[in-house]
């Protein structure tokens, strides 16, 4: 796979925080419309990997590529404008805005071709930001009843769904999901899985960090295992889980 055909790629990405090294020469390439999973023990550096890709953290060395261009030094905001969107391990929404307004703020950016200008924002009425997608999404996510309550009062499951809705409404090219299933009930998880399959698969590349591995089985076409900042396995779901290195370092199993 050359870096031309990869949508998103990182090369030799390294980041240290004192003694811990959550990214130690990581090479990874994500193809267009690929749905990939990343698993790994706690503290392996999965979230750090997302932070490096989205620009919340600057790598000590190595590069990040997107659509063939080097984006290592771009600000987080610029990367989002290019079409990289993420969700956070701790669901991150605007607690002080109501649910639709959260979605409107996310959608408005898309409406303005990714670069909302101050003047435009000032002159646009918030209720004027609407579209079928917004209605459909609020409906489909089951937000109809809570549409006008403050997001801070939502349950964790609803917050995650809201954050996801805010990410996919902008139709990003790459969607990075940090443990989207954590703390959710089976039903909520299957709702999210359905939504990802119906709405996003085939339209964007998706990268999912998850500890609930079995849920990834039907969802991903590729799975990688990250341990101590290094990719120890990469392949299909089966391959990754059965690879000796992964079993050794992730499951602490030694093949006899």
């Amino acid at each position: 796979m050359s870096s031309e055909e990869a949508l998103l790629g990182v090369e030799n990405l390294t980041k240290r925080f004192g003694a811990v090294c959550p990214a130690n020469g990581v090479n990874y390439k994500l193809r267009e419309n690929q749905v990939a999973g990343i698993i790994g023990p706690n503290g392996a550096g999965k979230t750090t990997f997302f932070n490096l890709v989205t620009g919340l953290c600057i790598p000590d060395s190595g590069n990040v590529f997107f659509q063939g261009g080097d984006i290592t030094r771009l600000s987080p905001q610029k990367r989002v404008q290019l079409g990289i969107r993420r969700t956070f391990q701790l669901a991150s929404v605007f607690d002080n805005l109501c649910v639709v307004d959260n979605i409107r703020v996310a959608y408005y950016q898309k409406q303005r071709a990714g670069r909302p200008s101050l003047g435009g924002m000032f002159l646009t009425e918030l209720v004027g930001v609407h579209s079928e997608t917004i209605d459909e999404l609020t409906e489909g996510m089951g937000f109809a009843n809570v549409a006008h309550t403050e997001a801070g009062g939502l349950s964790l499951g609803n917050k995650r769904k809201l954050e996801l809705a805010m990410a996919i409404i902008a139709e990003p090219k790459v969607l990075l999901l940090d443990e989207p299933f954590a703390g959710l009930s089976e039903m909520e998880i299957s709702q999210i899985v359905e939504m990802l399959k119906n709405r996003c698969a085939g339209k964007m590349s998706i990268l999912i960090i998850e500890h609930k591995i079995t849920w990834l089985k039907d969802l991903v076409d590729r799975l990688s295992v990250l341990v101590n900042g290094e990719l120890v396995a990469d392949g299909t779901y089966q391959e990754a889980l059965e690879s000796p290195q992964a079993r050794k370092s992730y499951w602490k199993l030694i093949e006899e």
Partner: protein
Amino acid sequence: MPRWLKRYGDILLVFGAVGLLRLALPVPFVIHAVIFAIYTMAFSFLIGRLGLVSFGQPVYLSIGAYGTGIYLARFGTNPYAGLFVGVVVGILFSLLIGSLLLRLTGDYFALANLALCAVGFFFFQKALVSVTNGDTGLWYLARMSSTPILNLRQPNNVFVLALILAVLVWLLMKYIDSSVYGAACLAVKGNETKLQLLGYDTFGVKWLAFVLANATAALAGALYAIYFGFVSPASMELVRAPEVIVAALLGGAGTLYGPLLGAFLYIAMQDLVSTHVLYWELFVGIMVVLIMMGDEKGITTWLKPIFRSGWQLVSRRPKITRTP
């Protein structure tokens, strides 16, 4: 009920009440309170909408006052032009200061503003004494002679002007609340990183808000300058920094009516206290502590439901409100 009345009915109500107060209460009090309300609205916007706490608001007020004062004392005789100069100086100043201080996170921002206030006071009192006359201040009431519309040497006319400007500022705040920009401001307060990761220029959002708010503070300062006909560094003393904070929190920060209510209550209390008590710091200090034991929304938390149900009674139709 016609649409415009539904939309702007509250403004008629509120400012109509202010107009009536003018008939019932002494003019100096009402003028003072209306100008102070403009100042409070600006601060309340910053703290309630952006989550920016500034301890240096007197600086922005005084910059406007001095802009107007110096113009009227040394250059022109038209107070309207003076007002304009004050606001423009306020805009330029806050553009500059905003670009430096807004890079700071919350605590640093508040404290840096406090330092700015200390330095500003010193500048106007000592360093620029040749321009500002130091503690003596600049006096120019008699010079404000060319007044095309309202003669602003008369308090009654200052009241009319101040009220009109207060309405405009209030409308601006109300408008911002309904715009995407207003939502972005709230979003900055709630979760700035997230907004950045939605592709917004959060610095720009904050910068514009900072300039809008502090230009409004400068406008209030300019109005004071015209009303009193003189300016002195006393308006910039650090002890005065909490005034506007108390007023805003008293009425409820980030609410629309709160600043008006807070400003009137505060000025009323200050007038009462300063005539009866020698050391008003003690009083204000205790007030601040008591208010802070409550929460950010002040007394409007329990006034709002009353207002709302009253309004629904009048408009006879349940209003679907967007949560602020």
